């Protein structure tokens, strides 16, 4: 009975992630006539701002292999990652026709073009750009980011017609704090008892957070976590690996399934933006500054955010060690400049530490996984043999 309920939750979440029509957002709009949905691109966005205006934030993070790219290819150069094309295609093909505003971030050279391409092509919505500091250790960065957030508040207020008060923002921060806490719990379970929840299950659950009202996701998580812990599963003799490379474009579910057949993925950076803030945000008297401060002071890492206090190899090795992993899979999305560059740094750092790893490239629209299966199985077997 409990297993059935859990299975339903996972299925619902995965279906949501694979449905290019954003059914939960459409449902929300039916229930909230006149409500506004605001989309934001990877990696991180302070969704509390949108939430506090009574609007629904959703994550626009590409499509799966089922999405036919018909029009977007003619708008974007050939050697650009898939997530940018599929996100654009979803809007061009009407899957995102309910958006009132779309926000991108200059996370990489390719994504910086989103603002222009979307603005040129869609005059029915506001296409905004939110800047994060690339120099977060500057004494002036926090003020700059707070000002950026304030500008975003004005843009959201204009779209929604609702004033974002400090009280509303503080209440929204609580909702998202809870969500991040629940996601941290899920990842703790993954690290400590990976046999209780597969990667595909945990990932489905995580990804759904960006696709439905966050209160609903909190309910779902509150139901799912005890059921996961109560599962009657036994540990198996599998290699414990960390998967890195899913900070922006996402690997296909089926690719994760192939990896989990051979390994326990005990930690990863999939949809890291949903877990970007690593501690509860204390709203205090100035919740907007508190949000900006959390970005600068208590956040994760990725190839597209520079912070000299957090060298990425150091952070990555901490993730590997913190999860008690024996090995790592260092992935990168095809044509992703920052991801591919970071791969070299990660690989060298792992070499220096004598940590075995597998380098791989993926694409969200991949459909054949035999090659991946072969590589992962060979890798896992060689490790089992080595550790035996």
């Amino acid at each position: 009975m409990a297993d059935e309920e859990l299975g339903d939750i996972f299925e619902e979440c995965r279906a949501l992630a694979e449905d290019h029509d954003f059914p939960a957002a459409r449902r929300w709009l039916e229930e909230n006539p006149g409500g506004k949905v605001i989309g934001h691109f990877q990696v991180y966005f302070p969704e509390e701002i949108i939430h506090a205006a009574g609007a629904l934030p959703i994550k626009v993070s590409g499509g799966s292999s089922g999405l036919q790219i018909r029009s977007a290819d003619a708008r974007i150069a050939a050697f650009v990652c898939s997530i940018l094309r599929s996100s654009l295609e979803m809007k061009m093909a009407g899957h995102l026709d309910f958006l009132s505003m779309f926000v991108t971030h200059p996370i990489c050279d390719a994504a910086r073009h989103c603002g222009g391409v979307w603005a040129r092509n869609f005059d029915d919505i506001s296409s905004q750009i939110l800047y994060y500091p690339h120099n977060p250790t500057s004494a002036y960065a926090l003020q700059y980011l707070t000002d950026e957030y304030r500008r975003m508040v004005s843009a959201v207020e204009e779209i929604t017609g609702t004033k974002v008060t400090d009280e509303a923002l503080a209440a929204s921060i609580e909702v998202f704090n809870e969500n991040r806490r629940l996601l941290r719990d899920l990842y703790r379970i993954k690290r400590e008892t990976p046999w209780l929840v597969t990667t595909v299950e945990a990932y489905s659950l995580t990804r759904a957070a960006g696709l439905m009202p966050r209160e609903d996701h909190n309910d779902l998580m509150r139901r799912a976590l005890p059921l996961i812990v109560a599962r009657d599963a036994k540990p198996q003799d599998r290699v414990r690996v960390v998967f890195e490379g899913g900070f922006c474009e996402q690997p296909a579910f089926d690719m994760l399934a192939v990896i989990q057949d051979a390994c326990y993925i005990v930690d990863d950076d999939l949809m890291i933006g949903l877990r970007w803030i690593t501690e509860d945000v204390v709203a205090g008297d100035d919740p907007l500054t508190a949000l900006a401060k959390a970005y600068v002071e208590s956040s994760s890492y990725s190839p597209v955010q520079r912070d000299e206090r957090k060298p990425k190899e150091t952070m990555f090795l901490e993730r590997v060690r913190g999860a008690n992993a024996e090995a790592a899979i260092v992935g990168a999305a095809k044509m992703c400049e920052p991801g591919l560059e970071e791969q070299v740094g990660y690989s060298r750092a792992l070499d220096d530490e004598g940590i075995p790893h597998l380098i791989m490239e993926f694409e969200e629209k991949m459909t054949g996984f035999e090659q991946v299966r072969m590589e992962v199985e060979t890798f896992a077997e060689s490790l089992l043999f080595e550790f035996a």
Partner: protein
Amino acid sequence: MTENQPSMAGATRTQSRQLMDGWWKDLTDADAAGRPVANVFVMGSIAEILRVFDLPMSFPEVAALQTAVRGRSMDFLLAAEDYGYSPDICGYVKVDAGLHITGRNHPQGKLPKPAIVVATNMCNTYIKWAEIWERMYECPVFVLDLPGWRGSGFEYGLDGATFESDRRYVEGQLRELITVCEEVTGLEFDIDKLREIMLEVNRMSGLYQEIIALNENRPAPFNAVTEGINYMGIANAFRGSPEGNLFMETALAELRERVALGQGAIAEEKFRLMLVGTACYSNFRDFNRLFEQWGGSFVASEYMSYAGGGIDRGIQYDVSRPLESLAEQILVTAQPSMSGIFHSHDWLAQQFERFSVDGICFHGVKSCRTTSTGLPDTREWLFKNMDIPGLFIQSDLVDSRLWAEAQLKNRVDAFFESLESRRALAGR
């Protein structure tokens, strides 16, 4: 000078060669003597501050380009790929990484180790690139973070509050950069020296604008791609120096003479073109030949704008308040250069009119998502909304494996044929 005989012919080229040789000699000598060198990038070098500290500036993009023009880039690309870098990342990064991995022996001199890196976010890859040196040499990396345009209309002009916030952020960072430079060089910051350098930049910016403006003439006196790259290179490497301005004066004089003599960049200018994106430097001659054989003259190039980090936009520093003014001018000139790459349609439409352009060549290069990602969309928008004809082709900056001549020639030929038909129709 006898009538119709050019007296300046070749003067610019000679001077540019001397300057570049001198630049390489400085870098080589600095490396040999163990003197600190700054690695910087063409878009936003902040030469103004680095020159105060007498830091020789090494421009890895220029160095990478030079290997390609000399037919050597593949050696370094392959070395970097052997090391683990993907075939799908920026070729400039790989040429440079290859150079560092193989002992820093550039065909023109010794590529020094950086003592400090200053990277702006005008290209995000600069930051990833800087992190490669950070790992190799454990040198300080200073990212000067420049805010870009906001809003969805992309008309330039920030509202007062945003401008003030940006100005505060940039000025604050400049002050922090000064502290890092003091630490690296052991020298104290000299604000009067900064003033002198800023005055040189004001002058250079004016001269550079005059050079660009000369191509409004028909025929256009210089090729904005092949010669433009030279002007740009010197504007970067010698920004803020009297030698740089002497060069610009020479170039201007030579070009004025060409205009007076009615001498164009190519023998017979039939079509006036603009290049958006960069050229292919590994096949530079071939690239230009594709256009020149149709009488196509590149009278304008977007590269001459953004690669100078704002120098083409008329920098006017107020030296009575140097740091404040430096921050403001960065926002007024470098910011539109950066954001203009991503939202270029309005600016391109203006340039099209200004230089009486017949058609735009959009050249997407695999190496550079910064300049290439949105080109097909921009081309489409300009054609649909402004009836501006555009050609979209793709190859690379430095990787000759991506040069598919027959395919490119077909596209280019078809484009010129369409320009001819347009002209015929218009003449009817």
